[in-house]
């Protein structure tokens, strides 16, 4: 289907045969390069912000889900295993799915991050998502003061 060739980490050229029903393709594609989906013409699309490794994952997802409308997807177990990866990779997948407008992958990865957020204490959330605490001590005390109804008896 597609053959990613990795030039370096920042630029990527891919020969992509149009996959029906998945994404709109990259936003970078100019008009005269628009692939004719039915003829299966080969087109070069530049994807500057996606590494080869992430792109391979995206392609793996697309290949599994290409016939979702006709015969259903690969199932929740496969999806769950697919996003069972490091934090950094999930974030890269989100950005890639957003950039390539692949709704299914975007929803799946967002769902995974939401699930990771659940049930965590404040420190755990900050640590997991590398969130910088930009409150001053007074501001933080004020914000905490607003929320005892959610946490205490």
């Amino acid at each position, binding site marked *: 289907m597609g053959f990613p060739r990795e030039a370096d980490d920042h630029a990527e050229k891919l020969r992509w045969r149009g996959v029906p029903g998945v994404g709109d393709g990259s936003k970078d594609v100019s008009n005269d390069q628009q692939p004719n989906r039915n003829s299966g013409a080969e087109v070069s699309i530049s994807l500057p912000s996606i590494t080869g490794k992430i792109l391979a994952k995206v392609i793996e997802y697309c290949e599994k889900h290409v016939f979702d409308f006709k015969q259903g997807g690969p199932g929740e177990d496969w999806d769950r295993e697919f996003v069972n990866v490091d934090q950094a990779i999930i974030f890269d997948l989100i950005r890639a799915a957003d950039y390539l407008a692949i709704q299914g992958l975007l929803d799946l990865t967002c769902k995974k991050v*939401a699930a990771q957020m*659940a*049930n965590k204490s404040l420190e755990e959330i900050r640590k997991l998502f590398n*969130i910088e605490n930009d409150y001053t001590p007074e501001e*933080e005390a004020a914000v905490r003061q607003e929320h005892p*109804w*959610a946490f205490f008896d």
Partner: protein
Amino acid sequence: MAILPDEIWQRILEIGAETSRLDYRDLCCVSIASHRLNRLSLDPTLWAILLARDFPPSDPPPPPPSKSLYKTKFERDKARKLTQWKRRVLNAESQLAMCKNKLIDLESMIVQESQKLKAVAEEITNLETTRSASVALNVWQPEIVRGRQKQMVEQCTVSIESRLASLKMEFQVCKQQIATYHKAYNKEKQRFGEYEEAVRSLKYQPFPGDQSVPVKMRSKSRMKINRSKRHEN
């Protein structure tokens, strides 16, 4: 965190609320994490989803959704559940008290009846001795003992046979009554045990049903076990 734009964090929070993975506690936690997340977590759409799920709207059209509306409904609901629980504890405790009184009554009745039984048994023994004496007197005792037996028979002023019959019947009735009391006592004791258990468990776990158990009263690990059960899709 800075890698992803606001719209994506918004989508993450929205999907979390829609799929019931994030609840009011998570959103509040998130809002204390940073300014940016605070702003994102105040989005009325998120709280509309939570309000629709946790406090389904009643007939009059509901006010516009917001975090403070959720907070108000939450606190009202919590107060209502607390009063309900208090009422149940009081009911259980009064049941327990009534059962205890019944047990005390039964105990004293058993004691009384046992005393009656003892008295009746004594009188039966006496009368039977007297009867055998009177038989002996009439049949085969030699003259030397005859005098003594005659004395015993003369001392007894009641009609021996009929009194003996009615005493024996009374004895049976007493025994039966005691048996009935014992049975009732055991049943009541069992009930007492059950009521005690009910009061104990009510007092220990004020809110059966995991949604609104106060965080402070459970250990963190037990909370995680309960809430991870909600996660299994």
